[in-house]
C-alpha cells in the first residue's frame, strides 16, 4: 500500500513522487532508520547520492558513545562474557533495566556458566536505582541517596580509586565504601549503562575507573543496545563511510556532527528541506518528527498517514529475515521472519528503486 498526500496510490507512482521530492531537495535527511542492515546500507547509499545526511532515532546515545570511543577508546565486554564471568555487575541508572527489564535474569541465569576468574559469589550493585529482584544465588545492593546519578558515579569512582572524599550522608558513605571495596576485590567487575541516559563526562568517569582497575585486575563496561537496531545501523554507517550516524554527505568528505546533523534540529531550523523517515522493524516503532516534506517508509503506515509520500514496507524480522544487532551475541545476527510476507517491498528495495529513478532522471 502507498499513499501520496493521503490518497491511495500505486507503488510505482509513489516511488516516482518520492524521487521527485528527493531529487529536488537541497539537503535531505534520512532519519528514524528503524531498519535492518540492508535498509541501513541502502539509506547510506541514497544519502551519499543525494548529498544528504543520515541520523537514527536513537542518535543521541549512539553519538555520545561514539564520541567517547573516538576520544579515549573503550573497554567493552560481550554480553556472553559478562553473563558467564563477571563476579560484580554495577548497573548504572535506570536506563539499562528500562531498555531490558529481563536484563538481570539474562545476566545471572541459574545454569552453571563457563569457568570464571576468582571465587567471589556473584553480586549486582544498583547505582542510582532501587534494587530489583535478583536470583537467589546472586547478592545485590543498591546505592541511592539525594545525590544525582553523575554524582553517585563520581563518588563510586573516587571510592574505587581510594581517593579521599567527604560527604555528610553517612549511610550513603557506608554503601559507597562497601561497593568500592567489593569492586576492588572483584576478579571481573563490569559497569553497565545506557549511553542515552548518561552524559559524556559520566561515561569518561566510568571508563577511567575501568582503566584504573585493569592495571591489576579484570574490568569492563557493557552498554545496553539502542532501540531500533541503532547499534547495527551505527556499525553499518561506520564500515560504509568511516563515521557513525549523524553524518552528512553534502561535501566531498563525509562529516559527522552529533549536534548539526540531528534530524529534529535540521527540520526545526529548515536546514533540511526533505525527510525520509524509516520505521520498519517488527515489534518496535518510532515517532516521526515534522517540519519538511516527507517520504515515509513504514511497516505500520497507519501511524504515519499524513506524510507526503507514504510507502508501506515489509517489517524487518516480521515479514522478512533481517540482519540486526543482537545483544546476546554483542554483534549483528540474523533473525528469521516471524511470518514471511513477500508481497511488501523491503526498505532496501524501496530506497534502491528511488535511487535508480533519481539516477535515470540525472542521466
Amino acid at each position, binding site marked *: 500500500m502507498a499513499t501520496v498526500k493521503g490518497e491511495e496510490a500505486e507503488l510505482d507512482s509513489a516511488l516516482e513522487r518520492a524521487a521527485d521530492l528527493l531529487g529536488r531537495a537541497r539537503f535531505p535527511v534520512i532519519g528514524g532508520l528503524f531498519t535492518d542492515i540492508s535498509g541501513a546500507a541502502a539509506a547510506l547509499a541514497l544519502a551519499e547520492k543525494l548529498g544528504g545526511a543520515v541520523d537514527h532515532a536513537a542518535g543521541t546515545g549512539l553519538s555520545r558513545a561514539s564520541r567517547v570511543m573516538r576520544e579515549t577508546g573503550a573497554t567493552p565486554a560481550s554480553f556472553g562474557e559478562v553473563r558467564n564471568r563477571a563476579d560484580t555487575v554495577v548497573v548504572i541508572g535506570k536506563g539499562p533495566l528500562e531498555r531490558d527489564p529481563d536484563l538481570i535474569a539474562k545476566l545471572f541465569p541459574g545454569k552453571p556458566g563457563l569457568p570464571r576468574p576468582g571465587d567471589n559469589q556473584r553480586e549486582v550493585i544498583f547505582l542510582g536505582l532501587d534494587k530489583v529482584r535478583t536470583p537467589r544465588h546472586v547478592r545485590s545492593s543498591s546505592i541511592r541517596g539525594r545525590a544525582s546519578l553523575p554524582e553517585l558515579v563520581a563518588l563510586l569512582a573516587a571510592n574505587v580509586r581510594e581517593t579521599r572524599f567527604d560527604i555528610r550522608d553517612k549511610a550513603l558513605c557506608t554503601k559507597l565504601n562497601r561497593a568500592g571495596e567489593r569492586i576492588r576485590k572483584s576478579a571481573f567487575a563490569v559497569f553497565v549503562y545506557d549511553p542515552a541516559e548518561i552524559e559524556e563526562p559520566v561515561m569518561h568517569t566510568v571508563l577511567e575507573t575501568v582503566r584504573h582497575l585493569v592495571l591489576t585486575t579484570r574490568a569492563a563496561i557493557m552498554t545496553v543496545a539502542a532501540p531500533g537496531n541503532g547499534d547495527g545501523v551505527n*556499525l553499518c554507517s561506520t564500515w560504509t563511510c568511516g563515521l557513525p550516524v549523524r553524518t552528512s554527505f553534502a561535501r566531498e568528505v563525509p562529516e559527522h556532527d552529533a549536534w548539526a546533523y540531528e534530524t529534529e534540529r535540521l527540520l526545526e531550523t529548515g536546514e533540511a528541506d526533505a525527510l525520509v523517515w524509516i520505521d520498519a522493524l517488527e515489534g518496535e516503532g518510532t515517532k516521526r518528527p515534522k517540519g519538511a516534506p516527507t517520504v515515509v517508509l513504514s511497516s505500520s503506515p497507519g501511524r504515519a498517514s499524513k506524510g507526503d509520500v507514504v510507502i508501506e514496507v515489509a517489517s524487518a524480522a516480521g515479514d522478512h529475515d533481517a540482519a540486526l544487532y543482537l545483544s546476546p551475541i554483542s554483534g549483528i545476527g540474523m533473525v528469521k521472519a516471524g511470518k514471511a510476507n513477500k508481497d511488501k517491498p523491503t526498505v532496501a528495495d524501496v530506497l534502491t528503486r528511488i535511487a535508480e529513478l533519481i539516477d535515470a532522471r540525472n542521466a
Partner: protein
Amino acid sequence: MLIQLKGGHVIDPVNKRDAKGDVFIEDGRIVAAPQGREPDEVYDVTGKIVMAGAVDMHSHIAGSNVTLGRQLMPELPYLAAQDGQPISPSPASWGAYATGIRYAEMGYTTVIEPAMIPTHAIEAQVELASIPIIDVAGLAILGNDDYTLELLRDGKGRSDELKDYVAWTLNHSKAIGLKVINAGGSEAFKFNDRTFSLDDEVPDYGVTSRAIVEAMQKAVADLAVPHPPHVHCNNLGIAGNVETAVATIEATQGLPIHFAHIQFYGYGKEGEKGFSSGAATLMDAVNKHKNATVDVGQVMFGQTVTISGDILRQFDGRRAASPKKWAINQGDGNGTGVVPYHYKSKSFVNALQWAIGLEIFLMAEDPWRVLFSTDHPNGALFVRYPEIIHLLMDKDERARWLDDVPEASREFSNLAEISRELTYSEIAVITRGAPAKLMGLNDRGHLGAGAIGDVAVYTEQKNKTKMFAGADYVFKSGELVVRKGKVVRVTYGRCYHVEPGYDPQIKRRVKSFYDSKYGVDPSWFGVSDAITNRRDRFATIPLSR
C-alpha cells in the same frame, strides 16, 4: 568476447612464463591462444609487465574487529595522509568501498580477511560483500573459545568431535580456513594472566597453547581443508620472542601450518637495548621446515592502527598507543584489541622491525613459503605495498632508506649486507602464485588456461613504487575494471569458502552449549546465502582430496 593482451612481458611463475607473449581472456577466464579466430578486443601491451591479479592472503579489511578500529580511529586516513602515505584524507578512505577500489587500482583481485569471529561472521560477511571488485574469503577464529577448550580439557583433542566442531564452524561462517590467534592466551587474559607462552596452561582448563595448535593442525589436516591452520603465535612483539617462534615451528610435527606476520616474532634480545634482529635464526627454522609457510607482516613508517584478536598482547601494547587511546573488546572467544600506533623511522625499535621484515623476505630460500603481507593495518596500511615491492626489488632504494634510520638499528640487523633483489617472477610468486595456492584457490594467482580472468598490467619503470601504485589495466573475471591506475567500472566479486563434512550430531551439541552458556541459538550467527541479495555471491572450493 575474446580479449587479447598482446605483446606484453608475461610473468607467470606457476606456468613458468617469463617472456614476451600474449594472454587471452574469454567469458571471464584465461584461455589458450585460440586458433583461427580473431579477438574481439585487442590491448597492445607491448613492453608492459603482465601478471595475474594479485592475491593478498592476510589483510584485515572487514568484520566487527576492523569496524571497532574504524570507530576508534576515524582520523586514521587524515593522519596517514599527513605523513605522506598515499591515501585520501577522508574517514571514508578506510571504509569498505574505498578498500575495494584501492586494491583494484594496485592490481589486487583477491583478498583474504584473516580474522572472522565466528559469532560475528554475519557482520564480517556483510562488510566483505560491500567491498567492490575484489573476490574475498575469510578465516574463522577458534582456539580461545570455550567449546574448543572444554574438548581439550576433557581429552578430546584428537577426537572426531573437535574435527566436527571445526568443520561446523567453517561451514557456519562460510570460511575458507581456520585461524588460531595466541592459542589460549586470549582466554588466559580473561583470568587476568598478562603473559602466555607455548607451554603455559589456560587457567581452569589446564590446556597449553602447544596442545591447542597441535589439535587444530590435526583437525584441519583430517578435514582436508586446503589452507593449513593460520597461526598467530604467542609472545607477539616481545624482545627475544624468536625463541618462541622457533619452538612453535619445531613443534609442528611435519603437518602443514601457516605462521602469520612472522616479522613480529623475529626479535632477538642482544645489545644494550635488549632488542635485535632474530631474522637469521627465524629464517633458518623456516627454511628447514618445509611443512611451514609464513607471511611477513612488513612494517612501514607512518601512522597506522593495530587490530588484533590477541587481546593479551594488545592490552600490553596499549602503553605505546599513539594517539593515546585504545579499545579492548573482551568478546566471546578471542575478542579484539585496537591500539593506534605510529612507526617512526627514527625509533631504534621501529627501524629494526622494518629491517627485520625485509631481511625475512630476502633470506627466504623458497619464496613459495614466505609470502607478502603487512598484516594490514598492523604493520602498515595496504596502500604501502608498492613501496615494499620497491624495497625488495631495488637494493639502492633500501640503502636510501637505511641512511635514514638510526645507526644502532642498522648495526643490529643484517639488512645492509644483503644485496639480493627480488625479480618480477619472485614478486609474482609472493603476491600471486603462492598465496593463491596456499589458500586452495587454484583457479587464480596464475595465467594458465582455465584460470579466472584476473590480470594486472603494469608499465615497467625503475621506480617500482610508481609502477605498482596504479596498474595500466586490471581485468577482474574478464572485465576491464581499471585503466591508467583508476577504476573505470565497479563490479562486485565473490566469496570463497570450504564445506568440509561433519557428523550432524555436532549441531545438537553446539546448540545445547550455546543455549546453556550464552542463551543464544547458533542459527543467529550462521551465514546464509541470503545475507546479500547477489546471486552466486558464495562459491565453494574443493577440499584437498
